[in-house]
């Protein structure tokens, strides 16, 4: 009896210890140490790579800027509506993310179209409608070629026009997780179910961090 109880207590201790060490997500991208003087003391601070200001037009023809993502976390990707290769799978997986965090105003999704000529807001609206996406939690945005490909670099996602690729564009299927300070906290293969599950777990961790 007593040995049984001991074992039980041991198990409980083990599990409770496991839960107290909270998992945190890494901060990705470049960083630099900045040394400055505050009140006569030299302090070295780490400055992390952040997403710069941007301005795009969404599926409702409304201007969307980085400020729309200020209060919370977001997941972002690069796609195009006539994409025959990986985008449908990424969209399908983002629907899962949306379903899990439905109506959580701390969570947003931002999909950039890399087909800047064809994917006008109207085309993006039709795409969103057909996917069954309503409301403004998932933003599909249109921008100039320079702006879209420029911001892709900042998210560390490769995207380029290429006539030889299926659909005319070559791009990576990353889903990028960005925190409230616009820092990149994770990159997940949007075509891999396990990695998308990991993304959703990590989003919970990141939301906990903000509390």
């Amino acid at each position: 009896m007593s040995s049984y109880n001991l074992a039980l207590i041991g198990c409980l201790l083990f599990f409770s210890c496991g839960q107290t060490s909270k998992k945190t997500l890494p901060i990705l991208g470049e960083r630099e140490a900045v040394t400055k003087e505050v009140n006569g003391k030299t302090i070295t601070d780490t400055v992390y790579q952040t997403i710069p200001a941007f301005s795009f037009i969404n599926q409702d023809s409304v201007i969307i800027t980085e400020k729309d993502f200020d209060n919370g976390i977001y997941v972002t990707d690069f796609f195009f509506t006539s994409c025959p290769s990986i985008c449908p799978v990424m969209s399908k997986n983002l629907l899962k993310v949306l379903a899990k965090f439905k109506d959580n105003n701390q969570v947003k999704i931002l999909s950039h179209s890399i087909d800047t000529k064809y994917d006008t807001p109207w085309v993006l609206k039709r795409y969103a409608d057909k996917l069954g996406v309503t409301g403004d939690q998932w933003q599909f945005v249109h921008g100039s070629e320079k702006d879209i490909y420029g911001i892709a670099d900042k998210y560390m996602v490769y995207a380029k026009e290429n006539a030889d690729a299926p659909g005319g564009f070559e791009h990576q299927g990353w889903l990028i997780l960005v925190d409230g300070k616009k820092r990149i906290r994770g990159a997940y293969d949007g075509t891999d179910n396990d990695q998308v599950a990991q993304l959703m777990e990590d989003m919970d961790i990141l939301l906990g961090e903000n509390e």
Partner: protein
Amino acid sequence: MSNYFVYVPFFFLLILIFANACQGENEIKKAQFFTNGKSLYTVNCENCHGVKGEGLGNLYPPLSDTASIQSNRTRLSCMIKYGIHEELIIDNRKFDTEMPANLSLTEQEIAYILTYVGNSFGNELGLVSTEEVSSTLKRCGQDQ
């Protein structure tokens, strides 16, 4: 008289054996087409139409509407080869997303894919032979 009783059952037995052999051959061919079709489906169709042929929202139609697969049997080859550029009603829903052409697929490969799709997701088309695909493709765009 006794010869008659021996030969007639023997004759029927012989027919039965031949019929079975033919059917067996057909079944083997179907299984072979199905297996090849499955891997071609994964590469060429699955991204949009899904692992279970479920489609995606109102963007890409499911392949599990058995009545529509059945009634379009003579058009499916053309749809795969040259894409779809018109509105379709599938599963009581309208679909107007353009389906891209797959010009690089051969008649043989289309037969593999159709045998796979035609015998998955609830469909029961049986073997779709290369000859069937070949003769259908000759009549694409005409009334079929």
